């Protein structure tokens, strides 16, 4: 005969975004996408890194990311939410977010972020991605 024991681990957190992601989130608050470029090897990343993952030792500069990207892959979850992974020309990495364009997206589709009118410095400042006209 074995019994059952229930317990919970609960705690609030205050996450500092660090240096690079603070630049990214402040960029979102201002309605722009920011990335980083390595001053040594020129590789660019979005979201930005404060250092170059390839070189490790070198410095980076923060740069604007073009407003339009392409869907690399997408999926629909059980409750109907559609998620897309969007990559941007010239940048490694990309952004995972919701697709709010109606219907299904497709691989290679050109999309833009739909920013909310009131922004606070969060990934949710983007409501989702929609097809660019």
């Amino acid at each position, binding site marked *: 005969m074995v019994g059952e*024991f229930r*317990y919970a*681990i609960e*705690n*609030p*957190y*205050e*996450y*500092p*975004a*660090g*240096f*690079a*992601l603070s630049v990214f989130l402040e960029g979102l608050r201002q309605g722009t996408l920011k990335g980083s470029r390595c001053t040594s090897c020129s590789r660019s990343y979005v979201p930005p*890194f*404060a*250092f170059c*993952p*390839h*070189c*490790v*030792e070198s410095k980076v500069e923060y740069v604007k990311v073009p407003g339009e990207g392409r869907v690399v892959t997408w999926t629909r979850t059980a409750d109907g939410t559609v998620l897309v992974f969007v990559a941007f020309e010239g940048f490694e990495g990309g952004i995972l977010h919701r697709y709010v364009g109606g219907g299904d997206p497709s691989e290679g589709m050109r999309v833009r972020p739909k920013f909310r009118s009131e922004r606070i410095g969060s990934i949710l400042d983007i409501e989702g991605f929609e097809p660019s006209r």
Partner: protein
Amino acid sequence: MRRVAIVGAGMTDFRSMLPHSSPEMIREAVKRCLDDVGSLSIRYVDGVLCASAPDAFDGYHDKVSIANEAAGAIGKPITRVFVGGGSGVAAAVSGWYHVASGLFDTLLVVAWEKMSPPYPHAQKLFQTIFEPVIEQPLGPNLIWIFALEMRRYMEAHNLSKELIAEVAVKNKANALDHPHAQLGAKITVEDVLRSEVMVWPVNRLDISPTSDGAVAILLASEDVARKLTDTPVWIDGVATCLDSQYWTNRDLAFPYYVYLAAQKAYRMAGIKNPLKEVDVWEPYDPFTYKELHHLDGLLGKPGLAPKLLKEGQLHRDGDYPASPSGGLLGVGNPIAAAGLMKVAELYWQLSERAGKRQVPNAYVGVAQAWGDLMQVGTVVVCRR
């Protein structure tokens, strides 16, 4: 098996809150370590060994991945070790295995901790270390265990709080000479005794604080080490020892697990009489009494460390300088990083780079960390 040396070390500041993200913190320590080595690009480091304590503090359960980009580990083998607070020195021990085995010529060992995100304080999450069914319903906090052990230790050797408080005075003063210390200060025994009682007999100044920070050291095999530096610091003895998790079954007066680990490490390093042959000691000091408790284990004689403290022998100019770095009480306690900081201190001491903290004639050093529920002993012995 071949000899392994530490050929460089670097660390971030230890602070109660660092605005860096965890990868940024790690990268800062790694860059400073590689700058210290000078002549090696990250591309030629064969692998990474990382250590960080409970995931609950960082708040996301992806520790190895956090270290990846920051330590230049993409495409390379990376291993994580975890033994609670002992992780920092355990990282050096496991790192030694990697290089001594012949499988890695160079290895970056990094340890970090981010304890600032939990709101309002990381203390509540320490509760997850206690057994959920029999202990957590009592609402314990981690300081309880230390207080229970401190009371037992005081009883076993008839020690006063005044004597034990001298460890805080010594270590915080030592930390004034450490460039990355969080808590270097000139305090007195009265300051410690007058600070708030947290869990009697532990007062606030008996405790090292929670901190953010990262440390990185570079290990190399003998041939490579001699090409990279004129002052390799050899790791000649390593050992790990765990005692039972049923800590309420054990007499807490003597850290048997530290003693056993130290004996193994001494044997490996060819040390027959540690009291005579070791020049620098870096015992783990999350609490004042803990430095003495662990030193008893390292020296193999219960009650000897407090006697040496009383005679002033644990100061930097004494015969048994302990925590010349300033220890956790002085530099800070980002859990895993604190242990590796002590190994890095041995590197700085034995290569004569410790500046104002330098212990004269430092040829052989011992660093030790401890963890989990009063049960982990990890020891390294280094030689110039």
